[in-house]
């Protein structure tokens, strides 16, 4: 299960993480992440077959509240930090190709 993080693996993970890395970064991360993952595999020294995973340490579980309207940001506030906005919306480059032929 030793997963050496080769450049191809770095590219795959970078795509999942939506990070466009340079060739230089890919080479560097391959070396650094391999060393870190190799260190992390120290965890395999431990037998955890009968151990429950612990996601957090709190003495509480589900937290509910009444389903009522709470104060929230105005449209204007929500858009105030957007790199591009207009007509009350976030603006992004065109996502769908124009196939209408019009």
């Amino acid at each position, binding site marked *: 299960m030793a997963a050496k993080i080769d450049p191809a693996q770095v590219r795959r993970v970078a795509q999942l993480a939506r*990070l466009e890395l340079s060739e230089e970064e890919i080479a560097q991360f391959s070396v650094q992440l391999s060393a870190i993952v190799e260190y*992390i595999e120290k*965890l395999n020294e*431990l037998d955890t077959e009968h151990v429950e995973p612990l996601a957090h*340490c709190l003495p*509480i579980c589900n937290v509910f509240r009444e389903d009522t309207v709470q104060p929230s940001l105005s449209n204007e506030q929500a858009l105030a*930090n957007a790199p591009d906005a207009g007509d009350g919306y976030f603006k992004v480059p065109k*996502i769908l190709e124009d196939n209408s032929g019009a």
Partner: protein
Amino acid sequence: MEWTVCSIRDRIASGKLKSREAVERFFARIEKIEPQVGAFLTLLKETALEQARKVDEKTASGQPLGPLAGVPVAVKDNLCTTFGPTTCASRMLEHFTSPYNAHVIEKLLAADAVIVGKTNMDEFAMGSSTENSGLKKTCNPWDLSRVPGGSSGGSAAAVAARMCAAALGSDTGGSIRQPAGFCGVVGLKPTYGRVSRYGLVAYGSSLDQIGPIAQTVEDAAVLLNVIAGHDPRDSTCVSEQTAPVPDYTAGLEMPLEGLRIAVVESFLEGIQTEVRQAIEEALRLYQKLGARLVPIQMPHFEYAISAYYVIATAEASSNLARYDGVHYGYRSPRAGDYIEVYSKSRDEALGAEVKRRIMLGTFALSSGYYDAYYLKALKVRNLIRNDFTRAFEQADCLMMPVSPTTAFRFGEKTADPLQMYLADIYTIAVNLAGVPAISIPCGLDRQNLPIGLQIVTAPFTESMLLQIARMFESQTDWHTRMPVFAAD
């Protein structure tokens, strides 16, 4: 003249000092010292003077004052404020202004505190030296050629150089305690769930906790009084029924009789000699005060760094997915399509360490590796938590170093990220277990660099933790030492 939180508050309340004078005094120091230390990303003199004016008006008209009335404090730049930018020291958020205040900011303002500025940090709180700041370099006031620690390096340096009375930081794997140790000040990480994380820019959500960095244990207690307590906007913030918030200053001067201190012998092996000596000296002092040392084992402690760098980076990869170049933050002008808006914006605006952690976390959560890494780390986290539970069945607290060495030089650990991670060995397990811990000054090495003593107690026992810390502080003068550079 003392310029601690308590001293300033008392002088303002008794009319001996105006809040405006206190603010001007700290800004005079900032003008003198800050150009060389670089602790702040944003200075907020105008709003600070306005906040001070309100306090002085309240005092003049005899209105009741909040517990931090007129006290100049700084806050880490990952705490959202509607005044001034909230950058997380990242180019991604360089021009971001929050539409709301973090819960702790609301609490500070309601307590009549004055916020002098926002402090530098490792980008998105990822790092142990503040060298990962995308915006600024912060130097350790004790030696300007050395790092202040991190990630709350700006907050610790600002308090150490007395450019504010106290500060808030955040601690995911030691980010309050380690810079406090490196800078010779007090740093408290409360129990996970004690302080609301609403408005704290998320890094590792199951580990992050906000806490005070201060000159004295009492000041830390006063700040914790203000920021602790339930907030429905953070569902992991515990209710008063689960864990009532006491007055953390009550009983602070009362030494604990028959204190049992857990120590792990191997924790003092392989570390800087002077750090070891200072910790041993501190333990001897506690023994003189009637404490008993209880040697214990923590067999899973050595797996903490491995577990942490899976769990924290997994959570980070998810939390930082929100920086998409669309909703807020940086957008690359070179992006052609919407995928590139996401991926190019992130590549151009995020620093190397942030990318490294997003990559590691994405890898650990990716198909085929989830069970082997993420699930495994969560199981080991349980074993580590159990180590602490067992320790606190045998003793009242655990004592150990904050870091294996004193502050290191710039660039000393940046080439090898793993070496930087390994230096967090004593602080990281505490976050995985969710328990409270404090770092207090306990010595200086031969190069006049501060050494920190770390004390850890059971969940929601911050009162006792502070009491134990105060026992040491009241018998020593390490907390009164100042970097020569920042002397009056």
